[in-house]
């Protein structure tokens, strides 16, 4: 008879697996019946995660869109290899993997889709280009399971943002199995952090943190009252507040447009000015 290996499900921050700095854990029973400890993130963990996202932003946003797509594709590869280890039905795992491949394809096309050459009535060329929004904190809908996690991850990463997913404790086993795939997917540390914790406790912490550029909530991850409060706080610092219905429909250009900033450039068209003045 073997001694059962007891598990502590660590969180994923800055490319490392960490315990909560608070030391708080919740003893739970895993899907295979063994006992496991789930880390419960504190407000300091959230601050650390956001600070880490901020310092990782330049590196991730600075990569070519093509490379971001390659890394997302590799995430699909890694999930494929680990599908049997995920505590969910194979069909659900396959659905999530297909979703990652879908987003890997978007990475180097979204910029061309959303950027424009604007019609202006003077001697200028006027472009609008999309740029990453910055640091995003995302609350995926627990009912979407793995699909919700990959959808939230890709919404952040495709545009070159960095961010932190906050996952409720009862989804921790799945979330941690998922971070193993993130960890081996060539994703640079800090592009995506995953914290497990109490949403009711952590959303108010995100609300009063000025260095978060956008908060994304999917489906029923938070209550309507909490969402209203988050919007009130977000308005004070001009934070972008985004709510998606859920993960059943994959994000497309409309969703990505919410997670990017638009930079518009005016360039002289170089038209010759006719001697003696002109109609311009």
């Amino acid at each position, binding site marked *: 008879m073997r001694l059962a290996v007891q598990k502590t499900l660590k969180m994923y921050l800055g490319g490392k697996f960490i315990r909560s700095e608070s030391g708080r854990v919740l003893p739970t029973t895993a899907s295979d019946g063994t006992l496991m400890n789930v880390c419960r993130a504190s407000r300091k963990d959230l*601050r650390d995660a956001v600070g880490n996202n*901020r310092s990782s932003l330049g590196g991730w946003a600075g990569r070519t869109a093509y490379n971001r797509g390659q890394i997302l594709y590799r995430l699909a590869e890694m999930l494929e290899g680990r599908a049997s280890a995920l505590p969910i039905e194979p069909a659900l795992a396959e659905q999530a993997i297909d979703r990652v491949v879908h987003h890997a394809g978007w990475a180097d096309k979204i910029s061309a889709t959303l950027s424009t050459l604007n019609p202006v009535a003077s001697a200028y060329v006027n472009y609008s280009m999309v740029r990453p929004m910055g640091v995003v904190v995302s609350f995926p809908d627990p009912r979407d399971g793995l699909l919700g996690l990959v959808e939230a991850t890709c919404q952040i990463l495709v545009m070159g943002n960095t961010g932190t997913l906050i996952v409720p404790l009862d989804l921790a086993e799945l979330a941690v199995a998922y971070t193993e795939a993130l960890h081996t997917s060539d994703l640079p540390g800090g592009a995506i952090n995953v914290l497990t914790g109490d949403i009711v406790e952590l959303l108010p912490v995100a609300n*009063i*943190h*000025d*260095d978060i550029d956008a908060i994304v909530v999917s489906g029923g991850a938070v209550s309507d009252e909490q969402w209203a409060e988050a919007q009130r706080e977000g308005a*004070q*610092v001009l934070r972008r507040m985004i709510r998606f219905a859920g993960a059943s429909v994959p994000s497309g250009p409309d969703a990505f447009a919410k997670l990017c900033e638009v930079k518009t450039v005016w360039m002289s068209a170089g038209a010759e000015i006719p001697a003696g003045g002109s109609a311009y």
Partner: protein
Amino acid sequence: MTTSPSSWPRVRVDAATVAVRTGRVRKRSIKKDSKERLLRLALSMIDLTTLEGMDTPGKVRSLCSKARHPHPERPDLPSTAAVCVYPNMVPVARSALGSESPVKIAAVATSFPAGQSPLPLKLDEVRRTVELGADEIDMVIDRGAFLRGDHQAVYDEIAATKEACGPARLKVILETGELQTLDNVALASRIAIDAGGDFIKTSTGKIKPAATLDVTLVMLEAIREHYLRTGVMVGMKPAGGIRDAKLALHYLALVAETLGSDWLDPHWFRFGASSLANDLLRQILRREDGHYQSPRRFSVD
């Protein structure tokens, strides 16, 4: 010039015990009220530093205004203790700060950061820098001489520099990152103090590792020993690598534990830092208005 002991006894430092003591300081909890007070104190202890080949008068002027008013929206916050610049920038800093400024001007001299120049050149540099208006001189010791065992040469150089400083206070940079062992740090601290240094300082900021809690504790112990023997206080300045408020508070706890609260004063303790100021501001303002501030809300210097 004071007379030197003919040779300095070897000092043995137990690195494991030092690590235990600094480890304990790191875990110490500081009560909310004390924290608020200490954050402001830490801000007032900063030598706001720019020591780059690409320094310009414009950058030094903006550094000076940051030193004077770390966050212009909050004029009640303390100024930093000093600005720390290269000698060429001293006149710029002086004209930016004025002659009555509470913010001191510290300048690095003696062929900072390597210190590999003939002594007369270094002394001349010190004298001229003081003439230009520096209140404090940050010198580097000759680490080469120290490591080859020529402690007397190190002592003589510090003593001569002290004399050249005239009224300016002298900070002696040991560059602990190059001294290899804590035993050496302890010995170099004693030489610097015996030779007349008003402050001992860990690092130039150009070498890694720069300031650490362990090295700082060893230097603080040397200061304490000197104080108990002679009653003379010597200042301490950890420099380099202290970027966040939390670490700054650990340093203050270490000073309070080792030397007592007399040293918790900008006259006796400084942080050589630049980005630390913004993190302190961030923590101070968070306590007051409840929002965890974005670093983007503070000026970049």
